[in-house]
């Protein structure tokens, strides 16, 4: 049956062919030929193709010469000749074999060789050994870590704190945990390198404002507001952050926090505050710049600081409300993917916190000392003091640059060297010149600690004065 039907269809088709008009057949014939041509013709000529032959490829591989892995570097590069410290880097320090008074280490509260801190670390060493052998997630959480987080949160009067095993990694991990591609970060030009790296890792849209210039920040925020009104859909998901430092590492100045908080609420941008220099320094109890200005700490979304300066241990922490901080436990790269802080370092930090809480007077002493040396260093011909009077780390810059950065650095290095000869250990502030977003001018960084006596401060000031006069005069 089926075959008969098929045959019938075929017959019908042949009949239809006979009945079709000639022009139709011709047209269809042409179309069929055209299709065949399209199928088999080449759309390009062979000699125009750029495919390389195997031989050519081999030649290319043979010819390619990479740049060296690292460019040559001369042996007398200033940065290659590090100062070598023998023994503890505390108040009195042996640099390159010479005993000096230390005006270079950020040991603000003199806790680095505090016997109580050492004893606490030792007790921890006896119980836990040294390493943790794992990240926090995988049995790297010790009771000491939980204690330290608890203590830091209580000390700072925040809901929660989270610790990192490296100061630099703290803010550099915290920023990209929140700020993602497409978000906008307003950041001070003078921000330190760790912030710069955090911003780079976040791949957010970065807007720099002039150092401590609130008018400039407001201008940028306003610009953004106008931008947002144009595209409200996008604005609804674009987070805005302001990233500032409490005391700026690169300038020794304080951020105008009250104005920043006003701008925060006016333009609905969250504030991240880096307090590595101001934690344990500013404020009546050393809680940093929020206490200094009497700002409610809840108005700051995230505070980060390292435990390597005032606390004289290793590592860093972030603190704030649980809503914000807890997120880092799964998203802070330096937290999740790194081994946790060795317990003896955490124990040292806890003991340092104890000492800070027991001696709140220590912060006033530090401030007094800062003021004193700050005053004593005024009026050196050729050198200017850069930084607040209450900042324990400030800079001495050349009043007039020689015109070349290298030459300036050499002059300053000569001052440092001669001060070192006269038992005052100083150092230039070091930067990666090609990597810094806004490279600060060369400077000598002076660090004040509570251990320095009045005589030592006077001596340092007068030495710097004399040496500077000899070198620059």
């Amino acid at each position, binding site marked *: 049956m089926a075959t008969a039907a098929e045959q019938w269809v075929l017959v019908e088709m042949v009949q239809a062919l006979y009945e079709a008009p000639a022009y139709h057949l011709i047209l269809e014939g042409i179309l069929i030929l055209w299709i065949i041509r399209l199928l088999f013709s080449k759309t390009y000529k062979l000699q125009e193709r750029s495919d390389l032959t195997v031989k050519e490829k081999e030649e290319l591989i043979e010819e390619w010469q990479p740049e060296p892995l*690292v*460019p040559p570097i001369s042996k007398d590069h200033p940065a290659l000749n590090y100062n070598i410290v023998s023994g503890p880097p505390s108040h009195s320090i042996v640099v390159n074999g010479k005993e000096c008074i230390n005006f270079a280490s950020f040991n603000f509260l003199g806790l680095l060789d505090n016997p109580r801190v050492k004893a606490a670390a030792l007790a921890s060493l006896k119980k836990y050994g040294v*390493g*943790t052998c794992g990240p926090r997630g995988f049995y790297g959480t010790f009771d000491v870590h939980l204690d330290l987080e608890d203590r830091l949160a209580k000390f700072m009067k925040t809901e929660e704190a989270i610790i990192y095993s*490296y100061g630099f990694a703290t803010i550099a991990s915290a920023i990209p945990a929140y700020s993602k591609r497409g978000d906008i970060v307003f950041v001070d030009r003078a921000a330190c390198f760790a912030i710069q790296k955090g911003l780079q890792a976040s791949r957010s849209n970065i807007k720099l404002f002039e150092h401590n210039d609130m008018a400039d920040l407001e201008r940028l925020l306003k610009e953004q507001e106008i931008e947002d009104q144009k595209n409200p859909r996008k604005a609804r998901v674009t987070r805005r952050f302001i990233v500032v430092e409490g005391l700026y590492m690169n300038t020794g100045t304080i951020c105008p926090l009250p104005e920043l908080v006003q701008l925060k609420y006016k333009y609905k941008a969250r504030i991240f505050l880096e307090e590595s220099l101001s934690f344990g320094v500013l404020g009546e109890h050393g809680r940093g710049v929020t206490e200094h200005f009497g700002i409610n700490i809840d108005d700051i979304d995230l505070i980060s600081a390292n435990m390597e300066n005032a606390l004289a*241990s290793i590592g860093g922490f972030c603190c704030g409300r649980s*809503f914000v901080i807890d997120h880092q436990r799964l998203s802070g790269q330096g937290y999740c993917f790194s081994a946790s802080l060795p317990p003896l370092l955490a124990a040292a930090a806890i003991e340092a916190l104890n000492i800070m809480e027991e001696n709140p007077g220590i912060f006033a002493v530090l401030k007094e000392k800062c003021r004193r040396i700050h005053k004593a260093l005024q009026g050196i011909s050729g050198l200017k003091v850069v930084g607040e009077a209450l900042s324990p780390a400030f800079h001495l810059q050349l009043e007039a640059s020689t015109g070349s950065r290298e030459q300036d650095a050499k002059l300053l290095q000569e001052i440092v060297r001669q001060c070192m000869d006269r038992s005052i250990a100083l150092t230039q502030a070091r930067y990666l010149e090609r990597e810094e977003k806004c490279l600060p001018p060369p400077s000598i960084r002076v660090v004040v600690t509570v251990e320095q006596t009045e005589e030592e401060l006077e001596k340092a000031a007068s030495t710097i004065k004399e040496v500077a006069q000899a070198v620059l005069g």
Partner: protein
Amino acid sequence: MRSWAGNLSGSSLIHPQRTSIHPGERSDCRKIAGQVGLAGSQFATQYIKSQNGKPHFYEKPVVESFEEAPLHVMVFTYMGYGIGTLFGYLRDFLRNSGIEKCNAAVEREEQKDFVPLYQNFENFYTRNIYMRIRDNWNRPICSAPGALFDVMERVSDDYNWTFRFTGRIIKDVINMGSYNFLGLAVRYDESMRTVKDVLEEYGVGVASTRHEMGTLNKHKELEDLVAQFLNVEAAMVFGMGFATNSMNIPALVGKGCLILSDELNHASLVLGARLSGATIRIFKHNNMQSLEKLLRDAVIYGQPRTRRAWKKILIMVEGVYSMEGSIVNLPQIVALKKKYKAYLYIDEAHSIGSVGPTGRGVVEFFGMDPQDVDVFMGTFTKSFGAAGGYIAGRKEFHSQGAPRMSRSSPADSAEEQDLVDYLRVHSHSAVYATSMSPPIAEQIIRSMKFIMGLDGTTEGLKRVQQLAKNTRYFRQRLNEMGFIIYGNEESPVVPLLLYMPGKVAAFARHLLNRKIGVVVVGFPATPLAEARARFCISAAHTREMLDTVLEALDEMGDLLHLKYSRNKKSARPELYDETSFELDD
């Protein structure tokens, strides 16, 4: 099961004579050692010993296995996630409509009108799936992370949103989770006296950077020792392993350079590569065809669009991969790198101290020459029981015009310069980060001397051998039981595949009840459907401990149906059960 034993010996890329050293080269080494102030003779003898005193691994079959899961397991795994997701939506609905109380921390009242800090979907997985089983992570311990440790018991009254400590301590849990490969992370004993002395002398902090006032003589001592340990000319140490990668890679490569990175590289390598500004291309895990194709294309076609030649190409791999337990295919990578004149950056975080006959890492494991690797990176967190990381490499002493020392390989072109000195100047870490704590440095020095036998004993070597023995035993027994185990048979990182999210939690909880601490990992650290448990074998594990664990795993495997492997069970008699023979009977 895939094996690259066959193509190792057969490949034309591998020259068997590479492992033999020429007399001229040997004397060069001695010269270099003298110049950098190492103990010259010792350096040279070690060099020879490590080259000649052991079998060549090229002939040795290297077996890595990544068995595929049966289909029904995959189906159930995805179903598990599907059901979890459905319930997640239901719970979210209940929470949003106020029927279920929401335990999550909330935004401040004053900031409700800000742009939300988190996207809702970002946290869906965390809130609805991770939260159900999160008691299996971040378990706090209160002792050294040795072979046995003490876990602080905690309970949750609100389905894992918060935890409450009961105050009870689960004593002597067998630790299968910490990277304590050589058992050097233990509580204080007499061998750590030097660490105590350094702590008492120096304190714990440094409060300055390497460039400013933070280079201590301890750091110098450590760096010289690390170089000696690795058989290279120079090394630099940093305070954190993660940062060693993320803060040094940008100093080595930049715009116009190409990074070829293994797809399973650690987050720190990925971050470093991203921060460097170089172009990143990913090759399949340990897949030499994939790598060679990328290398070829990169050299032939240059940079995209501009077609300019790449400035340099850096291959980034790890020694032992921490989630897969695989060992890098170093001989072939070195051959490829030489052929295409690329540079090789190898992260030995998990392999240093733990593989190789004397614990010198993958280079020694394959019996190769340290000169073949351009950048050695590693951490002190694992085998050394400390913290921090290092970068080490060649140092060449040729000033302008001076005749160059003879080098056997053409890849060491005349421009090859001093890696470590360059990093001393340009490393982000050296300029901006506080240097390593002195007692930590001393712990590394102590551990390293112990492994090298510089403490006058062979205990260190015994530990390395014990680790290899434990690893083989543990892996073999698991294979025999029929579990799917990933990785190289000599890798002390042993992933056991669990697949289903529900089993992950059951596995870890049951084992903790039996006083065994394991690490389980799931998405996003692994592919979604490949949740696994990961054991880290330690030299400190005794045979009894391993047997206890294996017995528990055997039962657990039956209880949770984890014995997925379809490979024929080994017909070999159990090699390691001497202890169970009762000779007196």
